[in-house]
């Protein structure tokens, strides 16, 4: 964002930048940076904390009142701890099919479809509660996504599924489908359970997904299958853009 700020200032637009990685602001030296010590992905703080979010936004806007340019970094005053796990949160569906043998494509497909069906009521609850429906980059229905993603455990499909964009490769469709699959599971967990509204921490959500679901087991198997292959598209998508670095490290992949 710092470079964008540089270009915009040259064109006459005043900019203020929220910075999540202080060293980048120090290197590029944009006019005004507010460094916030938050988790990557949370530039204004935690979700559903409008007071904190407004405080951060106002602090960023207030930097425009200063005249000690041409470049400075302000540290946002925050001493909160890393988010704590939510006590009493339980996995959203105890019968997730993590023990599925994903070397059996049909079994893997059935397992992911079962999980998707089990999570659907929770996903719908999460959408109703949050007003957010984060699935949809692939253009596919979730049941299609379950089938399409697991198909790559074998030979890649030659043609895109119905509803997919016709102007992109099967590897790119796979990336968007994997994004949608992950978003569906994670957003479902944010609703807690059907009877309790306990939102887990982001670490609880992601650890649950990557360690206790058949869907993640399929994605991990796809990475292992394609990351060293000659198929450039699948090598890139599965090797680099599917599993978070923290999970690769944590799972010893």
């Amino acid at each position: 964002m710092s470079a964008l700020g540089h270009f915009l200032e040259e064109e006459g637009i005043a900019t203020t930048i929220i910075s999540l990685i202080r060293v980048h602001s120090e290197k590029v030296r944009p006019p005004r940076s507010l460094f916030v010590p938050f988790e990557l992905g949370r530039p204004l703080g935690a979700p559903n904390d409008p007071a904190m979010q407004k405080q951060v936004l106002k602090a960023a806007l207030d930097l425009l009142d200063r005249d000690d340019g041409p470049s400075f970094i302000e540290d946002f005053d925050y001493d909160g701890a890393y988010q704590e796990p939510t006590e009493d949160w339980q996995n959203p569906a105890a019968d997730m099919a993590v023990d599925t043998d994903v070397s059996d494509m049909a079994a893997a497909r059935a397992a992911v479809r079962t999980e998707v069906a089990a999570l659907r009521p929770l996903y719908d609850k999460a959408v109703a509660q949050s007003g957010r429906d984060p699935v949809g980059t692939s253009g596919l229905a979730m049941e299609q996504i379950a089938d399409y993603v697991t198909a790559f455990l074998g030979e890649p499909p030659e043609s895109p599924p119905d509803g997919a964009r016709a102007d992109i490769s099967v590897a790119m469709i796979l990336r968007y489908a994997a994004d949608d699959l992950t978003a569906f599971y994670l957003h479902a967990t944010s609703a807690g359970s059907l009877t309790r509204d306990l939102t887990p921490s982001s670490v609880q959500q992601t650890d649950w997904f990557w360690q206790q679901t058949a869907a993640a087991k399929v994605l991990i198997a796809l990475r292992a299958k394609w990351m060293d292959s000659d198929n450039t598209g699948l090598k890139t998508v599965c090797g680099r853009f599917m599993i978070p670095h923290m999970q690769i490290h944590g799972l010893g992949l």
Partner: protein
Amino acid sequence: MVSMNNLTEHYQKLLGDLECPNFDSEPWVKPVPLSERRVTVISSAGIHDRDEVPFKGGDVGYRTIPSNANAKDIVMSHVSVNFDRTAFQQDLNAIFPIDHLKDMAADGTIGSVATDHYSFMGASDPVKMEDEVRELAKRLLGDKVDTAVLIPV
């Protein structure tokens, strides 16, 4: 909720060592008073309307998100999976605070909210975004926008 410290040492080093552009000049626009500013938000989160073309690797373009967009329709196609997405999934204002800007305009803290807001995808080389950013600046000036809040993810 401390950034970087909760990442592996390897990933912290990758981020810290990332090559950053080095500019010869340090442009500085003197802003108008806060209560007179017309403000837009520019995100690098790779977000857009569900019906827009998703971001792909190396994409240097931007997507437009109108002020009156429905939060329910905003999805993310950022190529990186190495940041928390649950905040975005639950609450768009945690990364793209349009509702808060509207509140600030309503109570007179800022002058007004821009007609549109924008998202790039931060994983792409920012230097290669230069033409797109300069073209965007002309759009902003056409909408009488004088201030941009730039928000990473």
